[in-house]
C-alpha cells in the first residue's frame, strides 16, 4: 500500500472506532427509559420516552407549546413552569428570563431535557391546540410583496376566535435542511371552519416568507398548528380604534367580517386605520370600502406615507400615527362608551400608536395588541 494512503486510512479507521464508541455510550448513558410528565397537578399524565427536549416530547404527545425558532432557544416563546428540580437555568435560557421567572422556575421547554419524572404547569388553552393537515387551495398576490394563501383542512374543523394565529410548518427546502415554524394571524372568519386564510408578506432573507413566496404552490400539502393567542374583540360597548399596516391587516379582516356576519357587539363603532407606503402597497381597499357602504358602524381610513404623484391618491397621507392622532382629536365622536385600541404590527408601530392613543385619553389597559415580535 502506498505510504501516502496509510495516514488518511489510519485516521479514518480511528475516527470510525471512536464514533462507534460514542454511539454505544450514548445508547447506554442517555437511556432514560419511560418517564412520566404530570401536567397541572395531574390533570394530564403522559408516559413518554426520556432523553429528548420537553418541547418536542410534548409535541409528540399532541400538546403544542408555541415556538417560533424550532427549539433552538432563540425565540423565548416556549416558556413553561417546571415544578421538578431539573437543575439551574442554562445560559441559553437566561436572556428570556426575568428575576420573577427564575424564582418561579419558568423554563424554556426547548432547553429542558426530559430525563426523569417531571411535574409542569401549562395554560389549559394549549390542550385544545392541534396540528392540522391542509392543502393549499388558492394563492393570490394582493400586493407585490403580500400573498393571500387559503388552506383547506384535509379533515376535521378548526375552532378559533377572530384575531388568533396559527403556526405555519415550513418543511426543509433549498438550502434549508430542517423544518421551521412561524406564526401568522388568521385572516379568515371563524365560521369557515374547514379553511384557514393567511396573509404573508415577503421579508427579505426570511425563511418562511421566502418559502411561501417562491416555493409554495396550489395543491401542496402543508401543516398548521393552532390556534394560539389572546388577541380578540372585547365584549364592551366601547368603540374599536384599530390600526395596522402590511400583513397586520390579517387579524382585523377576520374580526371585521366576523362582526359583520354575526352582528356581534352591535353597540361597537369600528374605526380602522390602515397604513401603507405607496398605492402599490395598499390592498383590500375596494373590498373594505364596500363593507363600509353596507355597514354603517364601520369606518375605514386608509393612508399612504409616501404616495407617488402619479398615483393621484385622494385619501389620507402621512404616517399612520399622524393620521390616527388627527382623527382622534377631530373626527371620531367621543361618547360615554369610550374607546379601545386594537393594534397589529411591528413593535415600533405599536409603541408609537400606544403613545398617540394615551395622549388622546385611551388608557393602556384598554389597548390590545398583537406584536409581530
Amino acid at each position, binding site marked *: 500500500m502506498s505510504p501516502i494512503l496509510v495516514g488518511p486510512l489510519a485516521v479514518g479507521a480511528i475516527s470510525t472506532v471512536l464514533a462507534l464508541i460514542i454511539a454505544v455510550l450514548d445508547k447506554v448513558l442517555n437511556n432514560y427509559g419511560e418517564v412520566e410528565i404530570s401536567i397541572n397537578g395531574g390533570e394530564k399524565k403522559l408516559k413518554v420516552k426520556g432523553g429528548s427536549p420537553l418541547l418536542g416530547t410534548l409535541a409528540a404527545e399532541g400538546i403544542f407549546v408555541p415556538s*417560533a425558532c424550532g427549539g433552538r432557544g432563540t425565540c423565548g416563546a416556549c416558556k413553561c413552569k417546571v415544578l421538578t428540580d431539573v437543575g439551574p437555568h442554562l445560559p441559553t435560557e437566561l436572556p428570556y428570563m426575568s428575576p420573577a421567572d427564575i424564582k418561579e422556575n419558568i423554563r424554556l421547554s426547548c432547553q429542558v431535557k426530559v430525563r426523569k419524572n417531571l411535574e409542569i404547569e401549562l395554560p389549559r388553552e394549549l390542550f385544545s391546540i392541534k396540528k392540522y393537515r391542509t392543502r393549499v387551495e388558492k394563492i393570490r398576490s394582493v400586493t407585490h410583496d403580500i400573498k393571500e394563501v387559503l388552506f383547506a383542512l384535509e379533515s376535521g374543523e378548526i375552532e378559533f376566535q377572530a384575531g388568533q394565529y396559527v403556526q405555519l410548518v415550513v418543511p426543509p427546502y433549498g438550502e434549508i435542511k430542517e423544518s421551521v415554524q412561524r406564526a401568522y394571524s388568521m385572516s379568515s372568519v371563524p365560521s369557515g371552519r374547514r379553511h384557514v386564510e393567511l396573509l404573508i408578506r415577503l421579508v427579505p432573507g426570511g425563511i418562511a416568507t421566502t418559502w411561501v413566496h417562491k416555493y409554495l404552490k396550489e395543491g401542496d400539502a402543508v401543516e398548521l398548528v393552532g390556534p394560539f393567542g389572546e388577541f380578540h374583540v372585547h365584549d364592551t360597548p366601547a368603540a374599536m380604534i384599530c390600526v395596522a399596516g402590511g400583513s397586520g391587516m390579517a387579524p382585523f379582516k377576520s374580526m371585521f367580517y366576523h362582526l359583520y356576519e354575526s352582528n356581534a357587539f352591535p353597540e361597537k363603532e369600528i374605526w380602522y386605520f390602515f397604513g401603507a*407606503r405607496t398605492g402599490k402597497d395598499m390592498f383590500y381597499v375596494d373590498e373594505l370600502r364596500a363593507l363600509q357602504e353596507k355597514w354603517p358602524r364601520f369606518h375605514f381610513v386608509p393612508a399612504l406615507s409616501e404616495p407617488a404623484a402619479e398615483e393621484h391618491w385622494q385619501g389620507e397621507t402621512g404616517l399612520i400615527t399622524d393620521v390616527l392622532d388627527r382623527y382622534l382629536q377631530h373626527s371620531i365622536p367621543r361618547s360615554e362608551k369610550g374607546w379601545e385600541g386594537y393594534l397589529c404590527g411591528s413593535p415600533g408601530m405599536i409603541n408609537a400608536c400606544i403613545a398617540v392613543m394615551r395622549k388622546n385619553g385611551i388608557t393602556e389597559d384598554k389597548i390590545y395588541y398583537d406584536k409581530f415580535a
Partner: protein
Amino acid sequence: MKQSPADRQAFERMMPGVITAQGFLGKDVRSPDRIIAEDELLFRELGLDFDTVADRLEELARKGEEGLGEPITVGKLLIQSGEARGKLPCPWGDGFFHKNAVSVSPADIPLEACAEGEDMLIYSELSIHMLRAHHFCQGRGSPFRLEPALLKQLLF
C-alpha cells in the same frame, strides 16, 4: 493559520441549524477565518472602516424604524425595518442580539426588483455586532452577507 478554540467553536455554531436554520456561511466554501481575512483586505482596498460601517448601519436601522414597519425613503435609500420574536446569540458567545431584519436598497429601484446581496443589503443587530467586533461579514450566499463593495456603494 491556526484556529483558537474560541474561533473553532464559533465556526461550528455558524453552521445551518445551530443558531439559525440558514447558518451564517451561505454557499461559501472558504473557512470563516479566511472569509474574515479576505474581507478585511477588501475593506482596506475600498477605504472602509469596520466601526464606521457599523455606525452607519445602526443609524440607518434607527431611521428605518420611523417607517413603523413600512418601507421609508431616507435620502437615496429605501429602508425597511422588520422585527421578529426573540434573540440570537453571537457565535463567538459574546452577547445576545434582538432578532430583526433591516433591508437597505436604492430608492430608485422598486423593492420587488432588488436582488438580495446585489443591490439590497439585509442585516440585523447581530450582523452589526459581528461586523464591528469580529470583522465577520458572513459567507457568500448568506442572505445577511454584508458584501464590502455593496456597503461602499450604498452607504457612502
